[in-house]
């Protein structure tokens, strides 16, 4: 435990109070004015803001330590390589993976899933095999599997969800069988916030010899991830959702699986030896990191992980739970508002619709009050279809949000009701 997380933990023990103002002061953008109003940023599930610790780490690295990596001879390259590989170890610890070489840097969750679909999928799936996902998935955990099905003749199976937005586990179990080769599920739904029972899902996959991929894009900012406790085969998340820069993310894969998989892209850094007759691939993780990677982005993501660890995911989880309960109660109490996604276990997301008002109009009117939410289908159109709605308004929280900001959201909703009265 770092000195900071000890401090955070003892602060929690002292009075149970989470010092949100202290953390808000770390995020320069939160003092921005939008249309003359103080920014209320409730679009964290789309992308989270960066603390100055991350902004500074990126600038400092570019100013003093930047060079291409793994090219060894000169000083700066060694410094940069050390920072890059140091970030890999931070990610390993963040996910509680066993080895650094199980951490592959990619562009984001989307690329991570595409990597598994292309490399593992094409090497291991045959016509008639099945890939099992759920009705809750983001498009990025649907479309790569559809492409893989077209290429291999495999079949995509979709487990249903309930009116509350929870996976119907009895139906899920029925869809797991000896043809199932890949099970791909999100840990937390981006559209509804449902926390899925991924431990149970992974165990079910393993019973039939399938591999399980967990889309952790929405869980990483809110929950502690432990890939070994989960026994996940693959786990993916994005830096920009955990207060780091865009354009970088992580694919965790069990070493034995990664070693057996063919490369995803060819190029520099992923080889150990090249002639026109024969090429030998580099060891993992480098086999999957062709070309010069997003070096500064990886360093920035490492700084973001340091920052999250200093706040502490337990403290974050407890505070956000309180925030979400408050928001659920207050927004849910407004006449004419219907919450979409009312699972027993949720994280960070409040999706809602207002009678007679389209979510885009909700978004525009809230924006005039300086409140940033997302209005739309959240790249999860099947979820919208399931509830028979074209879109929702979605407020999504981070640990720097406050109850006062939720009050501002509720005032905004009352204003909308007045306009559309």
């Amino acid at each position, binding site marked *: 435990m770092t000195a900071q997380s000890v401090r955070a933990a003892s602060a929690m023990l002292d009075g149970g109070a989470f010092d949100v103002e202290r953390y808000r002061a770390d995020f320069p953008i939160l003092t921005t004015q939008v*249309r003359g109003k103080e920014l209320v940023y409730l679009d964290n599930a789309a992308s989270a803001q960066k603390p100055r610790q991350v902004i500074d780490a990126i600038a400092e690295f570019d100013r003093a330590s930047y060079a291409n990596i793994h090219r060894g001879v000169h000083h700066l390259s060694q410094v940069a390589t050390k920072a890059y590989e140091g970030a890999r170890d931070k990610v390993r610890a963040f996910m509680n993976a066993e080895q650094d070489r199980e951490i592959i840097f990619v562009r984001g969750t989307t690329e991570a899933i595409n990597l598994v679909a292309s490399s593992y999928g094409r090497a291991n799936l045959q016509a008639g095999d099945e890939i099992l996902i759920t009705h809750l998935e983001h498009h990025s955990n649907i479309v790569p599997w559809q492409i893989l099905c077209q290429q291999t003749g495999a079949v995509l199976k979709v487990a249903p969800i309930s009116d509350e937005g929870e996976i119907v586990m009895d139906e899920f179990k029925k869809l797991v069988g000896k043809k199932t080769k890949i099970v791909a599920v999100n840990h937390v739904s981006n559209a509804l916030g449902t926390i899925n029972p991924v431990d149970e899902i992974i165990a079910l996959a393993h019973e039939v010899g399938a591999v399980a991929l967990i889309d952790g894009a929405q869980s990483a900012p809110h929950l502690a991830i432990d890939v070994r406790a989960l026994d996940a085969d693959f786990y993916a998340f994005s830096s920009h959702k955990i207060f780091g820069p865009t354009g970088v993310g992580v694919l965790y894969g069990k070493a034995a699986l990664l070693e057996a998989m063919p490369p995803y892209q060819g190029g520099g850094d992923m080889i150990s030896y090249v002639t026109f007759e024969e090429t030998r691939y580099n060891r993992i993780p480098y086999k999957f990191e062709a070309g010069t990677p997003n070096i500064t982005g990886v360093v920035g993501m490492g700084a973001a992980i340091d920052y999250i660890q200093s706040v502490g995911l337990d403290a974050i989880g407890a505070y956000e739970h309180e925030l979400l309960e408050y928001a659920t109660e207050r927004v849910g109490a407004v006449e004419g508002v219907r919450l979409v996604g009312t699972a027993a276990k949720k994280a960070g997301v409040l999706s809602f619709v207002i009678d007679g008002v389209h979510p885009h109009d909700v978004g525009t009117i809230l924006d005039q009050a300086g409140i940033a939410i997302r209005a739309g*289908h959240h790249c999860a159109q099947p979820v919208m279809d399931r509830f028979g709605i074209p879109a929702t308004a979605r407020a999504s929280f981070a640990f720097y949000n406050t109850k006062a900001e939720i009050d501002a959201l509720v005032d905004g909703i009352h204003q909308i009701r007045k306009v559309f009265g």
Partner: protein
Amino acid sequence: MASDLRELYQEVILDHNKKPRNFREMEPFDRKVEGFNPLCGDRLTLFMKIEDGVIKDVTFQGSGCAISTASASMMTEALVGKTFEEAEQMFSEFHDLVTGDPTDEPKVGEHLDKLEIFAGIREFPARVKCATLCWHTAKAALEGGQKSVSTE
């Protein structure tokens, strides 16, 4: 309410959103085109009856925000009785109106009439596509040949 918002959500627009005119399927029709905004999921189906180069009737179906619903509703009223040429002119005048620089006086073309109230959209660039989806769909219907049109 902020004045920009009042400009956008005028009474007339709110009224057309609540009670869209000509909101029905048409059978038989001469032209039918589907319009789709993939970014936000808005979709509408436009039906047209045409006689001797004149638009005799326009109806629509679909789901969308207040801006897109009101724009489609008011467009159906405005297009009836217009020639293809007049409709084309309205399309380009409407486009100029909603995409103009908000710091200038609104550019109100001579064919626009009541549609002038959409000038407020200039302040909301993210919403221009909501207002123009129906117009792109109508243009495709007039040109014929296309069964669907997308704003992207």
